């Protein structure tokens, strides 16, 4: 009996929490006149017209925004995988002068609020003529600036037996060989976690895309979506919800496919 009650409570709770999302999906399938005053979930006149309308109504195809977001995400994922793993390997395995100090410095940057570098970064990127380009989003990831991932990988590398390094060294591997042949392959669970979170965060990262991008054809999904009602000059809520659903799909797909790893990664590191 207690169990049944617990299940009933948990299911009801989940339903209430997810109701807005479900409602948005069904609202995207309703004609505009039917969205308001219909709190239920079943559209009376289901239609895909909102999707067709939303796709083109900002004057630029939504496909362009999706492509822009995808390009930035792909670049950030590659940058993070490459440079965070190089950095983590050095901190976890190599001995060098200043190691403790530099490691503490790296840890300190994890909690640093981005606003304290924002203004100066903006003026630097402006001098480099990078405003309204993708570079301000991409370049930092190739300089291992996301210390959270470095830390995640350092922790992981420390759990790899050092004997493997020693064996490789005896076989003639240098630092690069050990990184390339021993550490990288064994690090793959942490690399997958990094790739997933880099993708999701970058996909949803509104702030920097908002301040750096302005030309309509260079906009990314969040920025385009936020200007949607202004751009269409009307209250096309159906089309807006349709495109909202489109922007959420990639994240949901990644979540469904990698659910186990995402939740395990969260549990270990407190990533969100």
């Amino acid at each position, binding site marked *: 009996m207690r169990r049944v009650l*617990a299940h009933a*409570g*948990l299911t009801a*709770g*989940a339903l209430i*929490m997810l109701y*807005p*999302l479900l409602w948005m999906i069904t609202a995207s399938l309703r004609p505009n006149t039917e969205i*308001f*005053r219909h*709190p239920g979930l079943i559209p009376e006149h289901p239609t895909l017209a909102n999707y067709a309308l939303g796709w083109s109504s900002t004057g630029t195809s939504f496909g362009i925004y999706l492509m822009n977001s995808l390009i930035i995400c792909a670049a950030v994922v590659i940058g993070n995988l490459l440079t965070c793993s*190089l*950095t983590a*390997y*050095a*901190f976890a395995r*190599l*001995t*060098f*002068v200043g190691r403790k100090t530099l490691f503490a410095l*790296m840890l300190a*940057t994890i*909690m*640093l*609020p*981005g*606003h*304290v*570098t924002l*203004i*100066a970064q903006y*003026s630097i990127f402006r001098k480099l003529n990078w405003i309204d380009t993708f570079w301000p989003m991409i370049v930092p990831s190739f*300089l*291992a*600036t996301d210390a959270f991932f*470095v830390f995640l990988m350092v922790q992981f590398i420390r759990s790899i037996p050092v004997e493997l390094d020693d064996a490789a060294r005896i076989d003639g591997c*240098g630092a690069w060989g050990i*990184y390339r042949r021993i550490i990288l392959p064994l690090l793959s669970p942490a690399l997958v976690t990094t790739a997933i979170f880099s993708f999701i965060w970058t996909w949803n990262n*509104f*702030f920097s895309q908002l*301040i750096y991008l302005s030309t309509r054809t260079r906009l990314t*999904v*969040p920025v385009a*979506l*936020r200007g949607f009602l202004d751009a269409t000059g009307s209250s096309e809520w159906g089309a*807006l*919800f349709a495109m*909202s*659903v489109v*922007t*959420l799909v990639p*994240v*949901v797909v990644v*979540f469904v496919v990698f659910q186990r790893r995402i*939740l395990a990664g*969260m*549990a*270990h590191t*407190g990533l*969100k």
Partner: protein
Amino acid sequence: MIGRLRQSVPAYLFLLPWFVGIVGLTIGPMLLSLYYSFTDYALLNTPEWTGLHNYTALFQDSRYLQSLKVTFIYVGVSVPLEMAFALAVAVLLNRGLKGLAVYRALYYVPSLLGGSVAIALLWQQIFGSDGLLNDVLGLFGIHGRGWISEPGTALWTLILLRVWQFGAPMVIFLAGLRQIPDEVLEAAEVDGAGRWQRFWRVTLPLLSPVVFFNLVLQIIGAFQAFTPAFVISGGKGGPSDSTLFYTLYLYQQAFGNFRMGYAAAMAWVLLLIIAVFTGLNFVLGRTWVFYGDEGVRR
């Protein structure tokens, strides 16, 4: 020394990208921001030294003080609520119920999507005067109001949006709860401890490092919230500045008015506020966080 430096060369090569990043994109810009905060700088002019003027001006700026107030209310209300929900549901889920993985995934979905512009826009509809909430309330004969258009309630919709995302800390709590050995709880039961006693006297103290970790993380995150307030208020922080988050006001000053020096001063004050809160957490944490090596407190 020279020999040790020479031995360090391979490591430095590995660290080269990170080093360029931390100097060029973190420490450099931090110091530059600090310099800007003492100047009058509008992006197109050369910064002009004004000493502490930006900082003193901040505390005479009523909109700035309003943004502080809004942000403190937001952090102070949403974080404890979010944590309480996360802990309650995690404890409920940890009783060996079937379908744990499904519930965990479902409750996590809002955290996954909640920071996006799409959800902020959805929130704007739901809590609008013709929105979903009022439609549902209408079914019960209740005439709702414009939750987002009225200054008395707008901030609460944003607080609710954050609490709605309790799934992320919940997942961390669940992992923590699994680390608590069954024997400890069984021993307490044998000793006659009831359900509540076991929770307050055994589970919670053993879980306290995880509670602490979540608390620090959530507070730091909540202080920097931006997207929902920006999207829902159309970038203005209204109505009547009731949703003027700290970061939103910073954005307005920097990229609306191009008062870069002023915004840089705001950023440094924010850093100080977050540092103080994190430090305070660590100091207070000593009184209630139990790391398992000092004997259970009474």
